């Protein structure tokens, strides 16, 4: 099994605060990998380091064997490594279909593509994906008018429209109605299995991540604290301590 993303000794500090301290981890191809940790443990910083949002201080990030730590965000996205945001980000003044159409992959975009119209096949795929996330009826509405949960689903559909190799999801279920969460988990799994998208997921909702991920990394205070399959992580005393702030309290 090959590694999709290989992170080796990545360190990132903001002033005196070391947000990521010598982190080494791998995201294997075709799997769902989880990333957990208390607030401020450096999860989103690690995502930002991977996708080239900021330069890293030291270490290396490889994507499909290629060093990408010197590339910037758009270049990395065009390689097929995409992220969604914790605060949902969509193109809020455009309708859903347009949001989808402009989300196609820009990997091999030539000058002619910049002035091309969208083919019926692309439009069809956009509508099919909107249907997949349950937004078909609202496809002509201005996306900024949708509810937060629907915007989140739209953002997910936009990411799939891009046909990425890897998708980095930053808290995909945060702010989503609990009754919709199961549907979302199901869709994430199907995207992984049917479309072959490798997923790397930050999640605070423990039942969700334990259900979703095959392998979980736990960060605390910028360091890699523990890793392993969900069953092992769940029982790891260091993880429990980290989430409870070091106080050994009983969970009821």
């Amino acid at each position, binding site marked *: 099994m090959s590694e999709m993303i290989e992170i080796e000794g990545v360190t990132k500090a903001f002033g005196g605060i070391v947000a990521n301290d010598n982190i080494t981890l791998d995201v294997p191809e075709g799997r769902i990998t989880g990333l957990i940790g208390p607030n401020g443990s450096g999860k989103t910083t690690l995502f930002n380091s991977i*996708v080239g949002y900021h330069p890293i201080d030291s270490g290396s990030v490889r994507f499909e064997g290629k060093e990408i730590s010197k590339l910037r*965000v*758009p270049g990395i*996205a*065009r390689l097929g490594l*995409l*992220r969604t*945001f914790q605060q949902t*980000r*969509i*193109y*809020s*003044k*455009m*309708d859903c279909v*347009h949001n989808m*159409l*402009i*989300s196609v*992959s*820009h*990997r091999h*975009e030539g000058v002619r*593509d*910049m*002035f*091309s*119209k*969208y083919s019926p096949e692309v439009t*069809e795929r956009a*509508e*099919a994906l909107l*249907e997949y996330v349950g937004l*078909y*009826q*609202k*496809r*002509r*509405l*201005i996306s900024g008018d949708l509810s937060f949960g629907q915007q989140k689903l739209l953002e997910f559909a*936009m990411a799939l429209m*891009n046909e990425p190799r890897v998708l980095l999801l930053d808290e995909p279920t945060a702010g989503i109605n609990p009754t919709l969460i199961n549907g979302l988990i199901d869709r994430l799994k199907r995207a992984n299995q049917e479309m072959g998208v490798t997923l790397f997921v930050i999640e605070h909702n423990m039942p969700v991540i334990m259900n979703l991920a095959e392998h979980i990394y736990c960060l605390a205070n910028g360091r890699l604290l523990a890793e392993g399959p969900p069953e092992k992580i769940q029982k790891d005393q260091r993880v429990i301590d980290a989430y409870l702030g070091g106080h050994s309290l009983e969970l009821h």
Partner: protein
Amino acid sequence: MKFSQAQVAGYAAVLAFGIAGPFLFPAYTIQLSVLWIMILFALTWDTMGGQMGYNSLGNILFFGAGMYICAIVQIAWAYDVAAYTSHAGAVKIDYTPEQYFSSLGAGLVAAGVGSVVFALIFGRIVFGLRGPYFAIGTLGVALAAGELVGTWDYVGGGGGITVPFYPGEATAGSTFFYFLCFPLAVASFIFLKWLYSTRFGLAINAIRDDEEKAEAMGIHTLRYKVLAWTTSAFFLGISGGIFGNIVGFIEPLEVAFPTVTFGIFMVVMSLLGGKGTLWGPVLGATVFHLIKETTWTYMLGWQWVALGALIIIIVIFFQQGILGWAQEKWPEKFGIVVDEDTSAEDSRREAAE
């Protein structure tokens, strides 16, 4: 492309007015020429400000640059520009009609191309700026251009430069330039209409809504931004070349780089009509021009006060503009509807029935 009957009627009416205008109202030929230039101003500003969300206050730069480039080419066609400007008025340009029209044609082409080159150069600099910094940065570039040209003796400095006279009667000249302005505005409209219907249109809209997201999705944002800027520059450059010839005398601050008049008007017209729409700028420019000319005629002395009040009202209370307001009021007319069909399959079946 399919057009509804109403659209065909609308286009036909605009074109008929455009062609017949100077013959129906010969006294207003120059005014109508300026109206088309105003429409072009609003349309090209909206490409940047409305469609892409980059509120440029410096687009007037290309208007002035085009004006000077065109004038220089026209004079340099048969004369030494430096000698012409240093002996202000002493050297008379005497062109045969053939010389005049060929020099003007070359001048207008050079104005368009030259403005594009300027846009490519300045684009590299100003697109590092975002939001209000971009607005101030571009304003600075335009103001600096006016001041710099004012110290450049080759083109007459602050004293200005006279362009070659139209070979013929003044009224014939006005009509001739009208029929440059009108097709140019129509061409820019058609070009932008096409451009917005391609991936380019959605890409600059995406940049407007969330540039960081657009980057995270892999869009070549800089390419699109520079292209939008050069498109504006091309049409503005040519319009500047024509306007310089309508006025006949070019000087840097009031005619070529009028940052506080035309430079602001293009923003206001686009806002008034509804920024980010295709017809909004056309509508806004027309309404604004009518209001402006009315106040100049009936409120002389108070015209700037009236205009300032209008601008304040638009910016504070009516930012969405005429079309933006219409879209809020009748969203279904703009295709913003909830579909009854729950799947693409449903829609196809329904269409088949």
